[in-house]
């Protein structure tokens, strides 16, 4: 019965996707195996770095990122060389796509902010390149320090809500920065990661606007969103870069996204 339901939901989702094709939003993702490391937890995190449509679970091909690292106690550590290629796909994709994975050992208490700068992705449908600067924060051993500090990426979301230990329904507030300065009235897209571990059933959006939630920041680039389900939530603030990239001899625009991921859990 369960299998029938899941096949059915995949079929419904597939139909939905064909219908909702233009609404797809791209998201860079970093998902760690744990977002709060306590004494009794494994100190080795498994991190997955992907370029996907989180709600539809579609993978896109991701070449090796330009930068991948972690900030802990104000110190940056380059982890690019540790990335290993892996393959993945959604239940309805026939082809598998490359994503990246690594194991990282937590050695000290404090917040660990992992960040990635992907290699520009060419999107023919939008006639532009996409670069999503993506971050996620993991807390270790009771020291809640570091999460509110920017990494110093070209564009990034700096959390104003502590980004771990969040209940389902909590409000997440962040500030959008571009070259270190707030982006007034930035548009922020929000999606639920349907492949979140522990997600009890695939969410099937009843109409296009449910796939990607959209909020606008205030004059200080500050936005908020209340997350209605347990699992991983992605926030993407999109801006156009003031630089171009060449494609077949022609200059093309670059969409730079500041992406941040947080995890919520149901109150039980």
């Amino acid at each position, binding site marked *: 019965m369960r299998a029938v339901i899941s096949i059915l939901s995949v079929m419904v989702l597939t139909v939905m996707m064909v219908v909702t094709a233009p609404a797809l939003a791209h998201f860079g993702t970093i998902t760690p195996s744990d977002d709060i490391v306590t004494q009794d937890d494994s100190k080795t995190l498994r991190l997955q770095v992907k370029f996907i449509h989180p709600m539809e679970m579609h993978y896109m091909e991701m070449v090796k990122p330009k930068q991948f690292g972690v900030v802990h106690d104000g110190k940056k550590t380059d982890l690019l060389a540790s990335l290993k290629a892996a393959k993945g796909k959604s239940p309805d994709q026939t082809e598998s796509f490359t994503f990246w994975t690594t194991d990282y050992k937590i050695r000290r208490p404090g917040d660990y902010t992992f960040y990635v700068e992907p290699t520009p992705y060419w999107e023919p449908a939008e006639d532009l390149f996409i670069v999503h600067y993506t971050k996620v924060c993991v807390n270790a051993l009771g020291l*809640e320090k570091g999460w509110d500090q920017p990494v110093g990426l070209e564009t990034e979301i700096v959390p104003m809500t502590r980004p771990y230990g969040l209940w389902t329904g909590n409000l997440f507030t962040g500030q959008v920065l571009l070259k270190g300065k707030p982006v007034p009235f930035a548009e922020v897209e929000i999606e639920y990661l349907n492949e979140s571990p522990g997600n009890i059933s695939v969410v099937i959006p009843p109409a296009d606007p449910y796939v990607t939630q959209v909020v606008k920041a205030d004059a200080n680039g500050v936005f908020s969103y209340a997350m209605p389900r347990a699992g991983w939530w992605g926030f993407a603030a999109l801006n156009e870069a003031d630089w171009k990239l060449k494609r077949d001899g022609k200059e093309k625009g670059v969409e730079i996204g500041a992406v941040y991921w947080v995890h919520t859990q149901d109150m039980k």
Partner: protein
Amino acid sequence: MKTLSHLFILVVVTLLLSGTALAHKVNVFAYVEAGKVYTESYFPDGSPVEGGKVLVYDSQNNLLLEGVTDKKGLFNFAVPKVDDLTIVIEATMGHKNSFKLKKAELEAGR
């Protein structure tokens, strides 16, 4: 009437104090380097637990040694025994937490 308002102030002050205390969960972290155990005791915001009592137990729950954290929340000691150790921090007002330092880590840090 005056007594009442004094009582009210007392209640408010008590609430304020206890509120702060509740949010101040203590933590202790330990690691081994060159035959020495280094402990760090801290509150969630990173401020050190100063003058906290550190108690070190072996796997049979025997107290091996004790000490007091310094201004930076630190207390160090030579490896007392290669065993699974439990390091307990006792701060003021009954705040307490512990850290398990595994035998393997003590062996690796010799």
